């Protein structure tokens, strides 16, 4: 997810994050403060990934924002050596993983920065890193601890 010279939104992978584009803008505001968060349904208590505006379990539409652990372990990982999409071609090779969050029944997919594929193994600990784009948007990645 590099920073394109010009933004062509048809090929822009990073979600639009402002309140005029999405109702889950608090996710990005929290992330800017270093917090990985998601929604929990006030009606039935279910926590979902990704953040939701309507609960798929009970149809409720009132949500609380809850913090997710900033630490986790590698459940599975690989590295992209070839065939990266636009905006990511210059990043290869980069590691992408399924991270199992510590103490939460939840996994997330994220890039792992500051790591070489060869040096990693399943179960390795990682922690949250906030990646900032030049245009002010943010995304989450992890780094080995």
């Amino acid at each position: 997810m590099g920073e394109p010279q010009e933004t062509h939104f048809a090929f822009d992978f990073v979600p639009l994050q402002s309140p005029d584009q999405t109702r889950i803008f608090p996710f990005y505001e929290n992330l800017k403060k270093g917090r990985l968060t998601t929604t929990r349904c006030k009606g039935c208590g279910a926590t979902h990934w990704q953040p939701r505006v309507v609960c798929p379990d009970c149809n409720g539409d009132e949500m609380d924002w809850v913090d997710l652990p900033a630490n986790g372990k590698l459940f599975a990982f690989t590295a992209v050596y070839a065939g990266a999409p636009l905006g990511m071609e210059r990043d290869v090779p980069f590691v992408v993983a399924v991270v199992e969050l510590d103490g939460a029944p939840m996994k997330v997919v994220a890039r792992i920065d500051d790591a070489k594929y060869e040096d990693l193994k399943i179960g390795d600990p990682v922690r949250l890193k906030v990646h900032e784009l030049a245009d002010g948007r943010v995304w989450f990645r992890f780094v080995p601890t």
Partner: protein
Amino acid sequence: MRKVAIVGTGLTKWGVRGATYKELVQEAGKDLFDDVPNLDKPEVDSLFVGSALVDRLAFQAYPAPIVAEQLGLKPSRMAMRTEMACVSGQSAIRVAYASIVSGLSDVAVVVGAEKMNLPSMAEVQSSMACVLDREWDGVNGLNAPPYFALVAQRHMHEYGTTEEQMAEVSVKNHDHAATNPYAHFPKRVTKEKVLGSTRIAPPLKLLDCSGITDGAAAVLMTHGDAAKRFTDTPVFIEGLGQAQSGSLVVNLESLTTWLPLKRAAADAFKMAGVTVHDMDLAETHDCFTISEIMEYEDLGLCGKGEGGTYVTEGQSRIGGELPTNLRGGLLGCGHPLGATGVAQAIEVTRQFRAQVPQERYVGGDWGLCHNLSGNANNHAVMVLHRGG
């Protein structure tokens, strides 16, 4: 209930083609119409088009009227595009089946087509990556090869599957493709060559992956009473199943067991009144070598975790328990997304009609087609039976 048959087939040469989407459609149509000389085009009342990424890769939305005009058809009853990523092809056949069974359609053309090679590979890969949830999976650089690499790593971790076993799938399917002039990669490869091929997303290497391929495929379908007007050997669709679960990678029920495949196969076999052990040949969705290994397992051909041994024992080769991917699979033929599911049905049909080269002829009475899409969250299974 009406029976539904495939009564004609058409294919293009698959590969990096100097041909547009519309030209590929014309080529597949010519091959199909040459195969059914008794067809009057005005009899075709319905058209189903399986194309996954035509909007992005050919910059063309709304392909059904375009395909109809390219083929000289004026569908009077049903016309639509079916878009289910890599399952778009079998979805088109499935919808045609439903339409014919219901009586809404009598004679239907199904086309699967994809023009995938553009001057910018990064643009192609971007379009492929948004087959996954673009906002939460694709954004991380996840695409088909890295996703199936995660699957392969877990399968190796949980069951001891090896890169050598995965390589055997590629060797087998390239052996088959070497007999197929329509294939993108009609050349044998050795295990050493697979293991030494360019790293894409470890443990997957170039020859563990199906290609970025242009191609089209078409079939003519009709009901049982009309089938014999077009061919002496209609191929009847006796069972179908399709099941889906999850979208985001982390919300899938399992990375290493494809539960939707088990459900789709159970439905298709129940409907047909047969089991996987009655099949004479199978076309399964070998988008990556690990996929075919998991398909042996989740179709019930071997125990969980034994898929690697199944291929190294030769069970999926000609002469083995279930010859699999005789046209060369996605690994040997390439994978023009919407065309793949249609071409799988064509291979079974041409096998039953003894229209394939002798080196890969198996024939028989029962054939299986399996098509999967996205992060393997949708699986479609079809059971075909030789009529005549």
